[in-house]
């Protein structure tokens, strides 16, 4: 992103926000992939609408949760406005949410590493963001 990583020093609350965001990003992304690459073909070519209906409903409501969680997290990360909107929209495009999640998590980890390098004394629980 446009901001140097070391300027963002994540707190524990930021780590929780990251975890929430990653869970929601993966869940909505997987549901959307199932919907678009399984549900819709079944509905169109095999006239079995049930997969699309159930998964579509689930994705629709999980996307609402994703909106809130991603808004919270990108704000904490101080993502610029346009990129924030792109992250929010990524939840509606197959596979895009996963790409956005990768970029944001990497930036978070870089910020943690930069913060640890700058302040070694405060590095308890460093880099514990998962992957």
């Amino acid at each position, binding site marked *: 992103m446009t901001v140097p990583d070391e300027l963002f020093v994540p707190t524990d*609350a930021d780590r929780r*926000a990251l975890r929430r965001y990653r869970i929601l990003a993966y869940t909505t992304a997987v549901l959307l992939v199932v919907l678009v690459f399984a549900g819709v073909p079944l509905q169109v070519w095999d006239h079995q609408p049930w997969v699309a209906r159930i998964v579509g409903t689930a994705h*629709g409501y999980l996307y609402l949760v994703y909106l809130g969680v991603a*808004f919270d997290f990108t704000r904490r990360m101080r993502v610029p406005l346009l990129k924030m909107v792109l992250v929010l929209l990524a939840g509606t495009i197959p596979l895009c949410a996963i790409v956005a999640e990768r970029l944001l998590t990497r930036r978070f980890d870089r910020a943690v590493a930069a913060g640890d390098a700058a302040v070694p004394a405060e590095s308890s629980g460093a880099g514990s963001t998962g992957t």
Partner: protein
Amino acid sequence: MDSDTQAHPANPGRWFTRRSIMAHVALVIWVPGCALAAWWQVGIALGGDSLGWVYSVMWPCFAVFGIVFWWFLVHDDPDSVGARGLRRRATQARPGGTDPAGSPDDEAIARAEADDPELAAYNAYLDALSRQPASKGWRRR
């Protein structure tokens, strides 16, 4: 609301900045758009497809999210959130005080403060504010 926004007292002008006006325009398009989409889905639901009920509830939720987004766009001080706020905060958080040390104005400030206790108190207040631990979000943790 958090310290970020409350640190900037009521400021009617914030409703008419370029950023705010763009947010107003986006809201004026977004909310009726969501209402139309919800109404369209109600029609589908009444037409017999029960999936329409799902989306006729969801679109108003999107409208509400748009209102929340708009509210934050208007009320956030762009200097205290986002990338700009991060840069400014990092400057303030550097060890040793508010600005790169050894400012040539320090002497003048000290003299002015000696003459004016009110100014000295205000500067002490600002200093205390800038020494507070940085809040990362818009919420108090």
